[in-house]
């Protein structure tokens, strides 16, 4: 029988480094996948994982035993990723324009790469690229909220609590994110976004 997270937290608080190691072993993989989806690359994802566990360790005194350790560490990781994304967007103006230019051509390339064919899109790597473009076009807040909602299945209320947003603001961030996804897909798939495949095909 595995020791519970709560017991491991208590042991860590009592000075047992080994207990924290078990927590790292238990949760780091999941946090990595979350972090990868938030940041879009392996190096940043690893950084987020390490930062999250370090922050958790240093703030273990503030950890409220009422909540789950897993939710808590998710929240720390999400906030660190949020800061990282914000700082990335804040980078020098010229690199921001480069970024915009590079996300533009990416989509244009996708569009130019042939007749939009949903079958091909669905089967190939291209669908993934479209999603990458859409995720990059989201604001940091939209991206984090959307990732937590879509990939991690967290509810709006919980996401809001993690990111210190009202539930309404969280919902809006998710809506805008979904719209960006649909817009990107619409650009490559063609047809008005509200039309079904059958209608746009004729």
């Amino acid at each position, binding site marked *: 029988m595995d020791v519970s997270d709560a017991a491991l937290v208590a042991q860590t608080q009592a000075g047992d480094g080994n207990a924290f190691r078990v927590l790292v072993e238990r949760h780091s993989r999941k946090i990595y996948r979350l972090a990868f989806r938030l940041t879009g690359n*392996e190096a940043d994802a690893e950084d987020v994982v390490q930062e999250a566990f370090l922050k958790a360790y240093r703030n273990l005194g503030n950890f409220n035993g009422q909540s789950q350790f897993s939710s808590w560490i998710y929240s720390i990781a999400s906030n660190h990723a949020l800061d990282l994304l914000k700082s990335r967007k804040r980078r020098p103006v010229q690199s921001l324009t480069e970024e915009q230019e590079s996300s533009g051509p990416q989509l244009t390339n996708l569009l130019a790469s042939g007749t939009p064919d949903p079958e091909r899109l669905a089967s190939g790597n291209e669908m993934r690229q479209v999603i990458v473009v859409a995720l990059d076009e989201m604001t940091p807040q939209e991206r984090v909220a959307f990732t937590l909602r879509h990939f991690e299945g967290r509810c709006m209320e919980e996401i809001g609590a993690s990111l210190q947003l009202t539930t309404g603001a969280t919902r809006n961030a998710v809506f805008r994110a979904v719209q960006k996804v649909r817009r990107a897909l619409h650009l490559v798939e063609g047809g008005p976004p509200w039309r079904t495949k059958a209608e746009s095909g004729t």
Partner: protein
Amino acid sequence: MADESGIRHITEEEMICHYYGEESPGGLQAHLDECRQCSEEFSTLKRAMAAVDSFAAPNPPPDFEERTWRAIVQRDGSLAGRAAWWRRLLFPKRLMWAGGLAAMVIGAFLAGRLSITPRVTETAAAPEAVRERLLVAALSDHLEQSERLLLEIDNSELNDERQVAENLLAANRLYRQTAALEGKSSLATTLDDLERVLTDVAHAPDRPTAAQVRQLQARIEDQQLLFKVQMLGQRLRQLNQQPIERKG
């Protein structure tokens, strides 16, 4: 949102909430079932959301947990903890490749050779902490015996010493391997130095020449081995003198 016929269709936001199973207006599902326009829109939304799933996160490398742990310990030394690696000595998962031999050696070592009774009598003490103490006691016992052996290497015969060195070798090898695996490089280095000397003593001739003994002594002195072993033993004993943590 109502069309010419005055019917209120489902908004995009309501649909998204519905898709994620969040709170949405009552009667929404009934409307979806009846209204072709809205149900088609909902299908489009579902397709788009399914496309998002193509953005899969890669699997981190198999040693990811280990690497993460090392990285954070490196960034915060207090995590290494005084007890962090001792447990590995008792539960040497990665030494199990030796067919459980390592575990057996440790078991035998603890059962048979552990002469020091840990000064722990509190029944409420965490069993982990007690085990760690036993280990620390065992290793410091090992170092003490090694220390004695090193001091006894003089010009006389090495008969008894050879036997003692042989006995100490097996345990030493185990400690050294574990220390190395756990990244305790300075401990591993000291144990490595000790091991070489123990090997030499164990394999020494019955009646070594004075030159051979001097050579051995010179090596011990060159490496300041005696000093290192003494220091290490002292540190371990201090470790065991700290009050044991009790489970709340």
